[in-house]
């Protein structure tokens, strides 16, 4: 019997292709289109080449926003990662209180971003906010609306409050997978608390910790909603991070060309960082399986 050649099976991937085209490829191409053209509305486009990219690469405004963005991501990683590990190490391992802790830890993660922003926006207000009011009563000159440092502190504390749980929960999962015999062996070997952390807990957490760092880095690097709700990027431009700046440029000023060029570079940076993380992670896995 002759085998019939039938390529109709390819049609089965069509739904996925259509979905991906509409959800990713076409929007991205639109952005690319804006990035290399100048437009004055009415669907009239004039070829601009790499002009917008050139402008953006040399834009002081973008440099400042990028600087603030990197500083922000660095600060929250420096706080959330050690704090998350510390919390995970001190959470009860089992029983009633373990469940209570897990639920409490998960709560901030379940709150919509703009609600988190609103909570802190009100919480920090000097006139009616619990935090702002009592800080003022205690004699602190705290006002996130007018003082850039206060605005930074508020945004950072908010992010730590919102996201440390994620790091803690991931680390907790990593810790839970360590068999009890390791801790017992460490006691027999008279290992110090630090040695237990350094040689048992940290190596076992390394995988999930890397994922936690990746997630936190990406999210913080793209952060928009929460600082936008709390400070709107102010006072001045002091909390204007990349996303906020991008939206200002695209929607506020309607500079679609530069904003599109900016978006593409932004996207490439995040892609690059994710790729680096991915490579490191797979290498770690390989070493593990050797």
């Amino acid at each position, binding site marked *: 019997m002759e085998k019939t050649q039938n390529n109709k099976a390819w049609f089965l991937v069509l739904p996925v292709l259509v979905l991906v085209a509409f959800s990713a490829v076409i929007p991205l191409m639109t952005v690319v289109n804006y990035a290399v053209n100048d437009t004055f509305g009415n669907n009239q486009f004039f070829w601009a080449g790499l002009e917008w990219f050139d402008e953006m690469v040399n834009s002081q405004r973008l440099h400042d926003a990028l600087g603030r963005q990197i500083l922000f991501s660095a600060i929250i990683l420096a706080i959330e990662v050690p704090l998350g590990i510390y919390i995970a190490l001190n959470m009860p391992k089992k029983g009633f209180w373990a469940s209570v802790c897990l639920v409490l830890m998960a709560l901030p993660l379940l709150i919509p971003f703009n609600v988190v922003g609103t909570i802190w926006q009100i919480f920090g207000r000097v006139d009616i906010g619990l935090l702002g009011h009592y800080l003022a009563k205690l004699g602190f000159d705290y006002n996130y609306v007018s003082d850039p440092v206060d605005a930074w502190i508020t945004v950072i504390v908010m992010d730590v409050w919102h996201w440390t749980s994620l790091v803690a929960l991931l680390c907790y999962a990593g810790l839970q997978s360590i*068999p009890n*015999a*390791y801790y*017992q*062996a460490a*006691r*027999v*070997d*008279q*290992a*110090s608390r630090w*040695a237990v952390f350094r*040689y*048992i807990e940290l*190596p*076992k957490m390394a995988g999930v910790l890397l994922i936690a760092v990746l997630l936190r880095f990406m999210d913080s690097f793209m952060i928009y909603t929460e600082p936008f709700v709390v400070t709107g990027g102010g006072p001045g431009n002091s909390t204007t991070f990349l996303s906020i700046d991008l939206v200002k440029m695209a929607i506020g000023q309607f500079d679609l060309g530069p904003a599109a060029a900016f978006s593409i570079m932004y996207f490439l940076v995040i892609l690059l960082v994710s790729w680096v993380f991915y490579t490191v992670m797979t290498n770690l896995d390989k*070493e*593990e*399986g*050797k």
Partner: protein
Amino acid sequence: MAQITLKNLAHSYHPTPKGEQDFALKEMDHVWQDGGAYALLGSSGCGKTTLLNIISGLLRPSQGRVLFGDRDVTDAETAERNIAQVFQFPVVYDTMTVRDNLAFPLRNRGKDAAYIARRVDQIARMIGMETILDRKARGLTADAKQKISLGRGMVREDVNAILFDEPLTVIDPHMKWELRTQLKQLHREFGHTMIYVTHDQTEALTFADKVVVMYDGRVVQMGTPEELFETPAHTFVGYFIGSPGMNLLPAEIRGSTAHLQGAAVPLGAAYGPISGRTQIGIRPEYAVLTEGDGLPIAIRRVEDVGRHRIVRGEVAGQMISVIAPEGMPVGSALTHVRFTPDRINVYADDWRVAPAEGAV
């Protein structure tokens, strides 16, 4: 090094144990002589590991005291007790090299570098890993990792005891035999007290001078392999030690005769009145198939295990095993089984009953 004494020891994992059934370890008194090689034998879940962890201080007993020599160490930390313990599954510090793994317990105790280097080399030779000392422990096979664990357990010379918790479970049979021989040799050389937990009787009998058999949270018998074989103190010991285990038959004991469903079996000694459920126990090695002498047996199956054959048959409604030596023909002419009288043990409610004193 010291003698290890357990006094009125018991342990329960329940915070408020209500009765004996809540205790993983029933009340016991036990002495581990200094320098002895002990095997702790029993089926899974009988409390072996619990007992071991109490000795090493990983677990605090709910009642009773643990003494090292004259010193009460019940509340002492593991590190203070100066004990080495090897666990069932390999515990290695993945990010360290093999060398650092072996040196770890010594470094933590602040030994000087020259001594550590010498000692690590010695142990590495013993476990056959001297060529891969500088490799990272991560990625080694399970049995290589377990050898590192064993090495870490043996690297300290001044320990009070070395405890092994089924350490050879993950190791392949050939290496198992070799490592066990090395442990034995190590014991002869340095005279550490060693307690070796296992559920494998061959392992227990070849390693230890004294075998401690545990059953349901209790030590049911401690003795030499020979004692365990000849006079099991509990039916569990009879059944657990030996391959196949001891045959147990319900019987009524009157003087020096056991009555099984009408048939009489002569015993090697006379017994006084016994209360409780009585049984006689006879090892398959001491039962002989005959052409008419003894109890009638209906042979059901013959298994050839190489050196001898195991005959499975029915006596008085009970399946029993009989060992037929090599060369002896097993045929339909063999209709009866005879038990060697002085090898029969008598049990009441599962515990061995000693013959009445002065009786013949």
